[in-house]
Every structure is written in structure tokens, then in C-alpha cells.
């Protein structure tokens, strides 16, 4: 079976590096609700992929499925050539130490200090002495522009932007090969969004890490991504040429056969309001 994304991409260019993470034919259902259907995506080593899409279209579910937090009903995910569904619980746990996940609301542990939050993976997986783990934590915090004075604080004492940066520092502490960002700029002001985008770029440069960024912020996607794909509700990933689509040039629109992609990247309401009203009345 040829999946939708492969059809649209055509054969991969010969100079494309081997994919670090790939998912084929993923379908996820929660009860009677179908969230993903036959989704195929892959990310070559060293590149940043942005997955865009409307709110509620399953972007976060896709990201969590890629790391095995959600088990797909159909399809399989591979990381560095290993299929997650063929690994035992312990092997998956070991594999996850090679992946960093930056959650939408940072997901810092409320009961722990910032130092303990960032040092947690080191203390859990390596026999790093606590003092040394704190030193490494301080370095990672410095990488994301936070002073060591925040280390004694609790997550509740930090602003949203600072929490996201702590989340990034925690994701980096194990020097992962793959970084997954879930809506990294959501809920932040434009300046802080730019700071986070800059950090994503700097992290990629400094740590040579492969990244997948899930976002509905087109500016962010265009800034950080090598490649952008759009997740349609339920069905497929459609590739686009980021800058041209964002500018909405006639040439790009002419190339884009699906008006919904063009509409999304330009942020136009179009017929969506009337569609939604129709859905509400039907419901």
C-alpha cells in the first residue's frame, strides 16, 4: 500500500540522510473517536521537521505516538532502525534516554526544585553524583539563558517562558539524538516566542540534534524547520514549500492543489466559521 505522504513526496532524493525516526501507516483511536488515520512521516538525522495543523487535529497524539507514550492501533514507529512495538518495556525505557521531549506546558515536577527537575534524568539513569548532576544541570540552564539562581526555585515560582526553557534544559541534559517539541511557542508573547525559536535553532547547531516541532504557529515553523508537513484532520500529511506558501504567492498557491493548506498557512478563516456552525447545528 502506498501511503498518502509518500505519494506526495515522490521518491526520496539520494543525498537525504537516513531517517532517525519514522512512522508508517499510523492509526490511533480513542474509543470511537479516530484521531490519526494512516499517517506516515519520517525525519532524517540532523534535520528539523515541523508538523503543522489545526487545533485538535492530532499533532500532540502523533508526537506522543512517536515516543511510544501512545500505542497505535495500526502502523509502526521506528527509532534508529528499531521498531518500538518489538521492544520490551525496559528496552523502550533505555531508548527513551536518547530522546528529549519538551512538553507544551513544560510538565515540570511541581514537588521538585528546578535543579532536581533538570538533573532528574541523570540521577535516574546514570550513577552521576548529585553535586555533579547539579553542575551539568546548571550548564544546561545556562544554555537556555537561565541563571543558576533559579535552581533552588520551584516551577510555580517561574513564568511560562522560563518554565518552557527549563523544560528544554531538562530535555537536553541527557544529550539526546532526537528532540520533540510540543507547541513550544504556544501561550507566549512574540518576544518570548522568538527567544524559544532562537533556542531551538541554537540547540540544533550546538548539539547536532534531530528535531520534530509540532506547532500551529506558522512563524515558528518557518523559522526553525528544514521541512514542514501539515497534518490534516484524520488523514494525511501534505508537504509544502514553507516560505512560498506562507507568503501566499500566486505561484505557490497555484502549485498547492489543496486550498485548505494554503488557507491554513495564511491564517484565513475562509469558510471555516460557517462550516463549524454547520457542525454545531448537526451535533
Amino acid at each position, binding site marked *: 500500500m502506498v501511503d498518502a505522504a509518500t505519494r506526495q513526496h515522490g521518491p526520496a532524493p539520494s543525498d537525504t540522510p537516513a531517517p532517525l525516526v519514522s512512522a508508517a501507516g499510523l492509526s490511533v483511536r480513542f474509543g470511537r473517536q479516530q484521531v490519526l488515520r494512516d499517517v506516515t512521516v519520517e525525519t532524517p538525522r540532523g534535520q528539523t521537521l515541523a508538523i503543522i495543523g489545526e487545533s485538535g487535529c492530532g499533532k500532540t497524539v502523533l508526537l*506522543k505516538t512517536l*515516543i511510544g*507514550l501512545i500505542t497505535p492501533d495500526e502502523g509502526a514507529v521506528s527509532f534508529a532502525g528499531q521498531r518500538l512495538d518489538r521492544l520490551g518495556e525496559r528496552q*523502550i*525505557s*533505555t*531508548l*527513551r*534516554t536518547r*530522546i528529549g*521531549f519538551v*512538553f*507544551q*506546558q513544560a*510538565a*515540570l*515536577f*511541581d514537588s521538585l526544585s528546578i535543579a532536581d527537575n533538570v538533573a*532528574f*534524568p541523570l540521577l*535516574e*539513569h546514570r550513577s552521576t553524583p548529585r553535586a555533579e548532576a547539579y553542575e551539568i544541570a546548571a550548564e544546561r540552564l545556562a544554555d537556555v539563558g537561565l541563571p543558576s539562581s533559579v535552581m533552588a526555585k520551584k516551577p510555580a515560582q517561574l513564568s511560562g517562558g522560563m518554565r518552557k526553557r527549563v523544560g528544554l534544559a*531538562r530535555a537536553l541534559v*541527557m544529550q539526546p539524538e532526537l528532540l520533540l517539541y510540543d507547541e513550544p511557542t504556544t501561550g507566549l508573547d512574540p518576544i518570548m516566542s522568538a527567544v524559544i525559536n532562537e533556542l531551538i535553532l541554537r540547540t540544533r547547531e550546538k548539539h547536532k540534534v534531530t528535531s520534530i516541532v509540532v506547532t500551529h504557529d506558522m512563524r515558528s515553523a518557518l523559522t526553525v524547520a528544514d521541512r514542514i508537513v501539515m497534518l490534516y484532520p484524520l488523514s494525511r500529511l501534505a508537504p509544502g514549500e514553507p516560505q512560498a506558501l506562507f507568503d501566499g504567492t500566486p505561484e505557490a498557491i497555484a502549485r498547492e492543489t489543496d486550498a485548505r493548506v494554503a488557507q491554513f498557512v495564511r491564517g484565513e478563516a475562509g469558510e471555516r466559521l460557517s462550516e463549524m456552525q454547520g457542525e454545531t447545528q448537526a451535533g
Partner: protein
Amino acid sequence: MAEPQAPPTQPPAGYARAVNDQLADVGEVLVAAVEEVGDMTLFAGRTMRWLLTRWPSRELIFSSLHQIGVRSLPVIALTGTFIGMVLAVQAYYQFRSFGMETRLGAMINLSMFRELGPVLAATMLAGRVGSAIAAELGTMRVTEQIDALTSMGASPLRHLVAPRFLACLFMIPSLTIMAIFMGFVGGAFYCIFVFDVDPYFYFHNAQQAAGAWDLFYGVFKSVFFGMAIALISCYRGFHCSAGAEGVGRASTTAFVQSFVAILVLDLGLSIVLDRVYFFLWPSL
């Protein structure tokens, strides 16, 4: 001549259809309940596996022991004292009508040792600690902290469930003994100082009535209550639905299910322990 065709299957109309729907609803609820019990059993099994292979850190265990045990002491001591006094008030006039008020200590002690001490301590623990565990873990689920733990290759069962389970298991016997002791103190205080019962005979009869077996009886039951509270509350927190409403519901359900489990376990364990007693000492 054409063969007669079978009449087309039609959905039952009216009353029959309503009965069908009701049966389907009941079936759905039953299937969901069975699924939940199976899921909870697997959850308990996975927690036990962690306890047998890799314990949580001492820091986490001591923190849970403090939260669950030490901080529950005042409320359990207070409740035990009042229950002891209430038992005295309720029973005094009955006992006095037979001239047996000095036997009040025996009745209060037996009630506290075998039944009220363990059930009361467990109920208070389910209310104070079980709900808090479900709410805390539920909030962690909703704010993706449990997902964060998993994504870092750490086990949420080892870090979140195992320490709470161990704390409930180890602290509930002490809390039960505290409830029993305070019930004894409360009952003795009210009988001696308010009802003017002779203290010598009160304590003599109380001592004669309840022994080591009765204490074991209560403490043994409490261990099972503690395990049930920890597992139900953690399970509810882990399976919390989204939003503040979901956390609230998880907390309430944790208490209600823990309470029902305490009552069911109480009956079952009482029957088993009585049989063990008569097996060991058939002549008594």
C-alpha cells in the same frame, strides 16, 4: 409459483425496543466494570513487580511515610478518642440497667480492637490520604507530568505508586494501633470521670476482654485496607480524565471505591480470621 419469502427483520418497536436498550446499557456497564477490575489487577501486578525488582529511593519513601503516616496521626487520634467516648455514651444506660457498667471497658476495647479501630483508621486514611493521592496523581496526569516521567525512561509506577503503596502498607498498622489506643483512652475517660464507673473494675474487665489475638485481628485487617486504599487511589489518579472536573471526580471515586473495598474486605477477612481462630483453638 414463487416460494414465500421470509419477512424482513425489523427492529423491535415500542416497549420491546426500550427493554433491549436497557439491557444493552446494563451490559455495557457490566463489561466496563469487568474491564476496570482487570485493568486495576494488572496495575497492582505491575506495581508489585517494581517492588520486587527495584524499590523507589529512600527519599521518596520517607517523604510518603511522613505525608501519609505522620500527618494523619492527629486526625486519627482525635477520631479514635471521640469514637471511644461515643461508645461509652451509647452503651452506658444499657449496661447500667443490668448493673454491668464496669463491663463497659470490655465492650469498648473489643469493639475498638477488632472492628472500629481498623475500619476507622482506614476510613480516615481513605478520606484524608486516598483522595489527596488521587487528586495529586490526577493533576500530574492532566499536566503531563506522568507522561514526562515516562518520556525520560523512568517508571511512574516506581516513582509515584510504589512509595505511596509502601507508606500506606507500613503506616496503617501504626495508625490503627493509635486509633485503638485513643478509643480506649476516650472511653475510659468518659466512663470514669463522667459516669463515675469504678476505675479498678473498669480496667480489670477491659484487660480480661481483649488480648493479643484481638490486636492481631485488627492490625492484620488494616494491612489489607492500606493496600486497597493505595492501589485504588493511585489507579484513579493515573486514569484521571482531563480538566478540573476529571481531577475532582478521580478524588471522589477514589474515596468511594476505597470505602466500599474496606467494607467488603472487612467482612471477608472477619470470616476468614474467625475460621482460623476456631481452627487453631477449637475448644474455645
